[in-house]
């Protein structure tokens, strides 16, 4: 027994790490494919409301976002604490929405424009007034497909 044990110990080869990079690369590719790069920096605070009947947004490249919520702490001095609209990377006013919609449409192929969805990411403490205003602006420019962003409640 003793002899066999000794022999075994001596003959254990070092585990080859040559395949380690490959494994890591597979992981890397998985993450690259399955994730999306953050669209924008949030200038507003958004705590999404909860809803049970949510559906996944298909075709992310055809989705544009409109954010509504109170400004981040650092920006509150400039913009106050009332909910504001954020388009792309900056805080915008209601009247800029049609222009934003046009810009977003121009970035997509002509054929895909009718399939575009505007996702409203709205903070749950926001009043409906500003949301209704945004919806009316969207209707004016025929951007009729919208999505109220919400998340599933944790308890089911």
């Amino acid at each position: 027994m003793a002899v066999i044990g000794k022999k075994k110990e001596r003959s254990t080869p070092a585990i080859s790490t040559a395949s380690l990079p490959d494994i890591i690369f597979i992981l890397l590719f998985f993450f690259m494919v399955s994730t999306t790069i953050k669209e924008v920096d949030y200038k507003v605070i958004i705590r999404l409301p909860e809803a049970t009947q949510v559906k996944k947004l298909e075709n992310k490249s055809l989705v544009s976002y409109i954010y509504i919520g109170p400004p981040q702490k650092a920006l509150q001095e400039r913009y106050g604490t009332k909910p504001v609209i954020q388009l792309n990377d900056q805080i915008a006013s209601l009247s800029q929405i049609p222009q934003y919609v046009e810009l977003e449409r121009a970035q997509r192929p002509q054929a895909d424009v009718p399939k575009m969805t505007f996702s409203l990411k709205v903070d749950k403490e926001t009043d409906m007034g500003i949301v209704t205003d945004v919806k009316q602006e969207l209707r004016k420019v025929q951007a009729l497909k919208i999505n109220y962003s919400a998340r599933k409640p944790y308890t089911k």
Partner: protein
Amino acid sequence: MARRRKGIPEINAASMADIAFMLLIFFLVTTTMSVDKGITRKLPPPVPPDAEAPKVKERNVLTVLVNKDNQVAAKGELTDIDALTQMVKDFIVNPNDDPNLSEHEFISDLLEKEMKKPNPDKKKIETYKRILDEIGNVPKSKGVVSLQTDRATKYEVYIQVQDAIVKAFNELRDDLAKQAYGKPYNDLKEDQQKLIREVYPVSLSEAEPRRVKTK
């Protein structure tokens, strides 16, 4: 040559893993895993200001009001959001033909109506025929849920109400799907889902609720 070949040392690949790890960590940090989810809705197209408001019979409108104190009222009575789903279902289905709840039209009648039109919509006729074939002559409700909110209503409450109403329609669709195809709505094929959607469209008016006139 032989000497040179001997001289080239093997490139050490041990650091390859570290490089890949760094890339991996970079992607982990910069990306978000969360998928975008939400309630998808279609807004009504804009109407010219002088256009006639669509006339809908009073019994066919279920008005849901949310006031500035976030209280929910349906048909003029205070309710809570949990009860709303059942109310909407009862309103749409109306099994006992209650005169206060919505009216119905059978698919066969709708088909006949469409055929009699001067320029009938071929797609609609096709859809109605398929419904008669695959689902049967089911009644289709004329009911519309009208959601009105105050400017001071909280968005969270609004979403909860929307959720409750959409849930009612989803449950109705599920029931019909199980009855007709023996499968829940989400497991059906796209064209079968379309038929079910035709019977139970999410008839929810919200953008200009005041435009819905009662006769």
